[in-house]
């Protein structure tokens, strides 16, 4: 059987919020090393990869590898029934067709349990090759979310250009053009406010704004976000989930126009 307990339901709520807009359903693969979810969005333009390590849970038991196909919208609805400080436990029997999600209030006087039907999802796993990214940028997650939101007003696409001067986000459309430049921060008091750029080679890539804005729904999960880029390779937007794991979004670049 499978059982995983987290001290705070709020983390799971935030995780679901971060993925439910991109994915209608997904398969949670549980093994003794933890829980993994990997799925492409409907348009097959992005890939979500969620990893939660078993040692990050308060209690984790997985006797046999288990794949649970779930409707993420339904799961998010169930999680809304929990208070942020509640204990949340996910349980499933081997070969079961349902998963039980249980919430216990902090004072243990209220216990709710919800049983959700699992789905049979035909999803093949994609192998993500190890890539040496030409450019890795680490910045505050809020900053990135703000940039994506602001630039979306100008265009459907955002150009990310990374050179030794720093990283530049641009968008141009009917309204006009917008450019936001971030330079590497010299010295900062708080590490989470720093912008750190690790550049091997300059890179310029174009991406769909709406997808970046969908990725930034994971901002509540982490103070920092890491962007990894390399020419002709999907962008990786990674949010670390403290003490638990990470969520990575892969986004395919836009097809180059012949005219500039």
């Amino acid at each position, binding site marked *: 059987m499978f059982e995983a307990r987290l001290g705070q339901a709020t983390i799971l709520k935030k995780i679901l919020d971060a993925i439910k807009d991109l994915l209608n359903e997904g398969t949670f693969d549980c093994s003794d090393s933890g829980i993994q979810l990997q799925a*492409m969005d409907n*348009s097959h*333009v992005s*890939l979500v990869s969620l990893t939660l390590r078993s040692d990050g849970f308060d209690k984790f038991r997985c006797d046999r590898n288990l794949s649970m196909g779930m409707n993420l919208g339904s799961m998010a609805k169930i999680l809304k029934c929990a208070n942020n400080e509640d204990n949340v436990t996910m349980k499933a029997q081997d070969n079961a067709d349902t998963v039980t999600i249980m919430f216990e209030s902090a004072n243990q006087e209220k216990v709710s349990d919800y049983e959700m039907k699992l789905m049979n999802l035909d999803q093949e796993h994609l192998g993500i090759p190890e890539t040496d990214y030409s450019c890795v940028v680490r910045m505050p997650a809020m900053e990135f979310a703000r940039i994506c939101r602001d630039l979306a007003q100008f265009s*459907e696409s955002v150009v990310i250009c990374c050179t030794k001067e720093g990283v530049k986000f641009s968008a141009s459309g009917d309204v006009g053009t917008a450019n936001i430049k971030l330079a590497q921060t010299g010295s900062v008091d708080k590490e989470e406010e720093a912008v750190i750029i690790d550049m091997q080679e300059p890179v310029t890539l174009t991406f769909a704004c*709406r997808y970046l804005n969908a990725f930034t729904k994971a901002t509540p999960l982490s103070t920092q976000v890491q962007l990894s880029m390399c020419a002709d390779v999907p962008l990786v937007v990674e949010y670390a989930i403290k003490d638990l794991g990470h969520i990575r979004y892969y*986004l*395919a670049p836009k097809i180059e126009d012949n005219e500039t």
Partner: protein
Amino acid sequence: MSKKATRSTKPKPDPDAVPQKPTVSAAKKVFYIADNLLQAEDGEQRMRLERFYHPGKGQLAWFITHQDRHIMEVLEYAEPRRSWLLNNEVCSNGRTYMTTPFDATLLALHHLRKHCSQRAMSLDSIGVDESDTSVNRLLTKFTNATSLKCVSDVKVSGDLTFYKYNAERTLAWLALKTRGIVAVLKAKQVHCGLGAKSENYVRSEKLVTETDVNEMDYMRMACDYVGRYLDADLHEELTRYLHIPSEIQALVEEKSTAQKRKSQQGQQGANSKKIKLANGEDAASKLRNSSLLDSDDAKESVTSPPTPAPLKERTMTAKEKALAKGAKGSKSIASFFKAK
């Protein structure tokens, strides 16, 4: 080193041997035979299974004949992985053979079109030179003069009757048959739409309003059913005669009517009343101001009129549409990652 034989090792198959599937020839067959074939008039009961040319299939097919006068089609109902248990015996042939009423004129049509389009011929002279005697037999024994009149021009000269194929009459005749089938499909509530529908769920009231495109769906299904017995070109002529648009056209039309319906419903919803509470606030804003809702929900669903769910199956939510629009122009991520 010899391998220990365990229960899982099987004797290696001879690589040169021709692979043989286990064959079972079931001697028994389960039949549903129509009562009227079983009327014993003179005690002598001779039903025969015979083969005649089936225009829809383009080859010979089985029919059941009775006393050289009546003919019925033999339909075979087969599902994969079925067998019969008959008293204390098993029968590997899980099929059910059914005799169904059948208008022999449909079979005759093919021969009339082939031989009698240009000149009138008498029935017994058609197909007389062919090695397959079934044609002659079909035309002389099992056809019905009144039905033949519906598809051809008839000239009587002395003892002989001559038939000449008439396309106009045939199409009109087929159209009437098609309409008859539409009536049965409607009566039995057969689902003829473009998607699949499960029988196990109760249809919500809201979905009943999709009646505009259905008439054409019934006609198309009925025409296709009739077409199963016709030569391919005749089926096409019938489709044109009945003005049945191709399925792609129907899809396009359906999408545009769905759009129209959606915009109409949006207008209706805007008129819905907001619930007023005792202290003058309306329920929606009170709910929003309480901390029970996440900020996300408050913006979308509480104050705006509830958009009906049934259309969700076919159309995407606004968010999904926006994402799909954003996806345009991007490469497919599957092209970067190969399946493990």
